[in-house]
Structure formats: C-alpha cells, structure tokens
C-alpha cells in the first residue's frame, strides 16, 4: 500500500512537472499507464482494479478531463493486466514492447469511446493522432525502463 502511494505521488509529480521537457510534438509518455502496468502484474485482479481506479482518479484530478474518465479506463485495464499477468509473463523484449503498446493504445481507445459517449466533441482523426503517438511513446519509455536492471529484476519477481 505504502509503495503504491509513493509510486502514485512520484508518478503524478513527474508527469505534471517534468515530462513537458521531453514531449515530442506535444505528446508525452503516460507514466500512469506504466505504473498501472507494473503494479497490476503483482497483485490480485480485485486489488489491481482498485489501484487502477485510484490512479485514474489522480490523473483525472491533474488534468482538465472529467473525474472518472481515466478512473474507469485504468480500473478496467488494471483488472485485465492482473487477470492475464500469468499468461502475459514474458522476458522477451519484443513481446514486452507489444504488450505495452497494445495496453497504452487500448487505454487510449477506451478513453476516446468514453469521451465520445459523454461529450461528443472529439472527432476520430485528431483522437487517433493523440492515441497513436502516446501509445508508441509510452511503450518505448516502458520498454526502456524494463531494460534497467533493477526494474527488470523487480518485474521478473512480480511475474
């Protein structure tokens, strides 16, 4: 629990205060998705759902979006990641990259669907221009983080 909240605070601070300097074309990697991905693979699906919801609420509070938007998305993806973690456990770098990419893109698509359902102000093409680069950037950063020996060891222990 303590580790979760420390991770959450670190992630929120880095996302809001630091990542502006590494944005490419206005797109930044989503550290919340990476934290969700790393945390969910070591807990039960129920706990991952709740952790995802809290992570999402925090991201919503720090963004201009409605409260619950990312909460819904991350709760769903936290559950999915924890549920499939044993099947998805892999040491192969290429597979890890594709899993991160698919997860980030899936979270983006679900966010778009919810925004369209509730607001109807988000056209598809510009949304894809956000979802695609964000998913790729997030997957690349996650992939590089997994190459760090310590993160790699922790992640291997979790899975």
């Amino acid at each position: 629990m303590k580790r979760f909240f420390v991770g959450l605070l670190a992630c929120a601070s880095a996302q809001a205060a630091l990542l502006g300097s590494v944005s490419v074309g206005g797109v930044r990697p989503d550290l919340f998705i990476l934290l969700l991905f790393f945390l969910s693979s070591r807990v039960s699906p129920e706990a991952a759902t709740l952790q995802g919801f809290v992570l999402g609420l925090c991201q919503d509070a720090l963004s201009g979006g409605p409260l619950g938007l990312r909460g819904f998305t991350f709760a769903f993806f936290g559950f999915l990641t924890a549920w499939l973690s044993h099947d998805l456990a892999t040491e192969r770098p290429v597979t890890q990259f594709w899993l991160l990419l698919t997860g980030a893109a899936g979270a983006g698509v679900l966010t778009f669907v919810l925004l369209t359902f509730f607001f109807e102000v988000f056209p598809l093409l510009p949304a894809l221009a956000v979802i695609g680069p964000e998913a790729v950037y997030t997957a690349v950063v996650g992939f590089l983080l997994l190459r760090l020996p310590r993160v790699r060891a922790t992640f291997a222990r979790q899975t």
Partner: protein
Amino acid sequence: MFWRLVARHRRGVVLSIVLLGAFLLLTVQVRHDRAVVSFVRQAILFTVAPFIKLTAMTAGGAGAVWRDYVDLRKVRQDNLRLQREAAFLQQRIDQLEEQALETRRLQGLLAMRETWRADYLAARVVGKDATNWFKTILIDRGSRSGLRRNLPVVAPDGLVGRVVEVTPSTAKVQLITDPVSAAGALMQRTRVTGIVSGHLDAGLRIRYLPLLADVAAGDEVVTSGMGGVFPKGIPVGRVISVERKSGALFQEAALQPKVDLGRLEEVLILMGTEQREGFESRNRGLP
C-alpha cells in the same frame, strides 16, 4: 446464499462496482457539476500539488547542478584555474541572460498591466496537464491569493484561458486550446461575433460565424466580452484559413493563437470584475 454467490464471483463483483462507480461519476458531471466531485478533485489536487511544486523546483536546481557537473568534467588539469574562471563567467552570463529574458517577459506583463488598467496577479506555471487529451496548466497561486473559478488568465500577447480549479496554494487553468473550452470572440476588422474553441491538435477554431460574413486569413480575433468570463478586447489569435462547407449554416476559421501556450512560464490572472472595464474602454475606439 447471496454472500456466498458474491464471494464466488468476487472479481467480477469488484470490477462491476468500480466501473459502475466511475460511470456514475462521469454521468453526474455531465448532468450537474456536483459539489462532491469538485471536492474530490480539489482534495486530490491539494494533496499532490505540493509534490509537483517541489519536483519542479528540484528539477530546476538539479538541472543547474548537472550543467555545472558536465562543464567541470571537461576541465583539463593544466588549465584548471582558467577553465573554472571561464565556467564561472559562463554561468554568470547564463544567469544574466536568463535574468534579461525574465525581465523582458515581466516588462511585457507590466506593459500590458498598464495598458489595460486592470488589477492583475502574476503567477508561475508549475505543471502541465497529466494527459494528452486536455490542455490545462497548474499555477503557483491559489485561493490564499484571492483566486477563484472562472477568473480570466492572460499573457503579454493575449488570452491564455480561465481558472477552473482552485486549492489554497495552486490553481488549474484551462487553456483556450483545450478541446472543451469556449469563449465568445469577435473579428476585430468586421466586428462579426463567433465562439472560439480548442481542438485536439492544440489549435484554435472560431465557429458560428455567419455564412455571408467577411472573414479572411490574417484577420485578428479578440474576445467579445459576451459570456461573462472574459473581458472584451483581449487578443485571441489570427485567422489562418476559412472553411465554408456546402450546406452549412455557418462558416468557421482556424486560428493561430496569439500566445505560445506550449512555452508559458508566467501568466497574469485578472482579478475582480470591476477592473475589467479597462478592457472595454480601451477598445471603444476601435472600428
């Protein structure tokens, strides 16, 4: 029997309850802006904002230390003293250049303050939106400094946005390029009114312009004062292209924002409604 069933399908039950909760939360915000949602949002922001401010400050300090370290690593043994002196002088130059740039920015803010004759509060940008979907910034002033929701935020070049969330020490500002923001605006040359709204690509559009209105690339767009949030006459952007779709009731135009919203470091918040008269009187002489 019921509890046994719940325990058996615990995973599904937890997922359903959380998803339903999130869905209801979204529904509540679409239908009414309930106080409880605002309270939760402010509570999270209140908890996290100090860490964000601390991170921003630490990152600034660490950057300077890193630059010094990199400089020092390049120093050779035989000319250590000269290198140090050069590094020191370079640092001084950097500091002075930074001060000069800051002075220029602040002079711009001051000039605007004097020109528009309104009461302003200066604030530093300490954070950006946590997602790529919305365009908001976090500033280092909050309710302790007198900020409240819907106060207009400007920069020397023009309109930045409005305050949407306030905690005691920070506030969240929705930029005009946010996809869910809107502001009443008018074309400075022809006085045709429309609504400026943001776009996902961080651009700006002015919509609901009458189909026969004279709108051309290069036209300046300013706030119209309608809507009660933004005072009249604040520069918003310049028309880049005009779109007239066949069968449409209105025409719309893409705008280049006056302010470089991606590089904001300091902003001014317009305090109080009575001072907004300054904008109106300044623009009364316009055609």
